[in-house]
């Protein structure tokens, strides 16, 4: 039964299973375990990124398509919700309308992009999507009447999801500190439920006959075509599915942040983060998305704090403090990019599974 839920695609490594259980439990009970504002924000972001990265892995890891336009769909989702809530006020109807119209736009756009440009060479596709994404970013910041331009949109969400809404009068005194059972708490679990559902559905898709064909196309599209698989159809469908999942992830982001702007959901930086997470976790393994997102976001969120410690520890030494200040955290993030390619050529999941095989 459990195995069916996971589409018979089990972790296949004891260590991997253990890490996944820890992460999933951690996320499931995050509001009770980590009571700070920052940590719950990190947990929510991990959830959103899991959904986003999983959708990207369908493209990259399973189908072998390098697309830089993935944040565009993420952004469409976030903007869809933001614009609807901004224009119609904090109602559930606005959320529904925003989500549905964002999904519809993404559907059409990804279909068009897929049909027109998936025929060209992979590297050209990557470059075209890079250009399209940057054009879209420019467009979003130019249409300031609708999107709020560079400034973005701050908006309100329905009462039930606001911090002001209290499930119980008083905070619940848990073993790890007081837990405020408010609208944020509800929003978090809403996110958790949706992301879990998305993950399981995606797991199902990649383990379906369809998913297997995608892998074949990744390996040798020419041969797949000769077997009778219409590669354009499969690739386009994969592109559309990935876009829809990313859009949904974008909606979740907007819902959680109650803000959206070009930098928040459309920037190239996010695209790179996604790429890196997929590689760290392991391409073509959805579990990698969970592991990668968790590790990367923890690193990204706490790197500066860590450096602050390291910086004060090395005070007095030459040069090191200049490199170890929190101001230079990007340097270490860059190093993370390099090292992860070095040491996890098959990703953490690949590594762990290889070990398990020995």
């Amino acid at each position, binding site marked *: 039964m459990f195995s069916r839920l996971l589409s018979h695609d089990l972790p296949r490594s004891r260590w991997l299973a253990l890490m996944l259980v820890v992460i999933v439990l951690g996320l499931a009970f995050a509001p009770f375990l980590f009571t700070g504002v920052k940590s719950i924000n990190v947990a929510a972001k991990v959830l959103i990124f899991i959904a986003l990265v999983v959708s990207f892995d369908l493209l990259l890891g399973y189908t072998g398509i390098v697309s830089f336009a993935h944040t565009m769909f993420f952004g469409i989702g976030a903007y869809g919700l933001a614009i609807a809530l901004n224009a119609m006020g904090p109602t559930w109807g606005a959320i529904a309308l925003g989500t549905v119209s964002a999904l519809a736009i993404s559907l059409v756009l990804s279909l068009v992009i897929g049909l027109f440009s998936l025929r060209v060479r992979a590297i050209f596709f990557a470059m075209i999507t890079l250009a399209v994404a940057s054009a879209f970013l420019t467009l979003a910041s130019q249409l*300031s009447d609708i999107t709020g331009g*560079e*400034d973005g949109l701050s908006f309100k969400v329905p009462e039930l999801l606001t911090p002001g809404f209290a499930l119980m009068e008083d905070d619940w005194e848990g073993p790890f500190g007081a837990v405020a059972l408010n609208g944020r708490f509800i929003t978090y679990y809403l996110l958790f439920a949706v992301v879990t559902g998305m993950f399981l559905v995606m797991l199902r898709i990649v383990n379906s006959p369809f998913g297997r064909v995608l892998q074949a196309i990744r390996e040798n599209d020419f041969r797949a075509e000769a077997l009778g698989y219409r590669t354009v159809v499969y690739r386009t469908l994969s592109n559309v599915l990935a876009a829809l999942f990313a859009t949904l992830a974008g909606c979740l982001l907007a819902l959680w942040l109650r803000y*959206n702007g070009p930098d928040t959901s459309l920037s190239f930086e996010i695209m790179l983060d996604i790429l890196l997470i997929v590689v760290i976790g392991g391409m073509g393994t959805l579990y990698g998305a969970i592991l990668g997102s968790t590790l990367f976001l923890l690193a990204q969120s706490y790197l500066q704090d860590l450096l602050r410690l390291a910086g004060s520890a090395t005070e007095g030494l030459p040069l090191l403090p200049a490199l170890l200040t929190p101001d230079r955290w990007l340097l270490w993030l860059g190093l993370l990019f390099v090292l992860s390619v070095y040491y996890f050529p098959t990703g953490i999941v690949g590594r762990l599974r290889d070990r398990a095989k020995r």
Partner: protein
Amino acid sequence: QSKEIRIAHVYSKTGPLEAYAKQTHVGLMMGLDYATGGTMEVAGKKLVIIEKDDQGKPDLGKSLLAAAYGDDKADIAVGPTASPVALAMLPVAEEYRKILLVEPAVADSITGDKWNKYIFRTGRNSSQDAISNAVALDKAENTIITLGQDDAFGRDGVKAFREAIKKAKVIHEEFQPPSTTDFTPAIQRIIDKFKGVPGRKFVWIVWSRPNSPFSKFAELELQKRHGIEMASGGNILPAMVTYKQFPGMEGAAYYYFGIPKNPVNEAMVARHYKEFKSPPDFFTAGGFSAAMALVTALKKTNGDAKASALIPAMEGMSFDTPKGKMTFRKEDHQAMQSMYHFKIKADPAFAWGVPELVREIKPEEMNVPIRNKR
């Protein structure tokens, strides 16, 4: 009641605005030290500064501010550097019912339609910038074309500028993409528009990016060939290096260390030289002013940092800054302040074009509109 007042400084420690942000922080710390007479205490309470790096990202700024108020129990927050970040942060202050002192983000809407009562701003807003420049250029014989970057910053500035111009003629607004690499077309359009126009011709430039059009105006010898002059606001010192090619250029500045004559500025310049062997810059003055505002207000409430006490204390409050006296306007909590009409001099002793004071534009002379709804 705790023995501390916790102040969070949320700013773009890293990212493209790093250089600006650092100046603000230096100014803030220097200002707090100066205002408390070196004790870092107000009314017997220790001032504790918590630094947060928003990296110039609005979403991050928003969650950091929440973390500062929520996790770090900050009583007051100062920052941020970029306007989009500030706009994303405004609702958080309202949610936590704590003061956010905006410095140096400039967008009008921060104290305009996005404002809430927990927001104060020591920094100048776009309108103040533009209006002061308008005051400096507003003569009947002048014809002006504006050149702005095509985004909220540029458009806000040009709009406010136009509204403030009463006598001069603005014949054209030129906007170019913020990422423009070649300004030849823009300049060509401007030349064409000025054809046959009598009197003095000015191009007023509002541009904040490093890819500035200034040097191109010099290369194409506009003044010599077409009698077109340039005007613009002040900027940070490294950016004013290009001004050196335009001796005589006029405009209005927010701050230049050599201009204001008052004890606070003298103290700041002296300290800065002592500590960094260089003069304080644009944003240092801003950070310093924010510190002065905070300490003045806390003294007034006798160390009570709750918004309920601070808001009434700060509304209408005047305080000393390196730029002289500032006053938080009651209506929108914007600090009203002097600006400086300058003229550039090329002084071989300095790497940058030195703005020399023509005259101080007092707050009363600038009719800065109130754009918020209370």
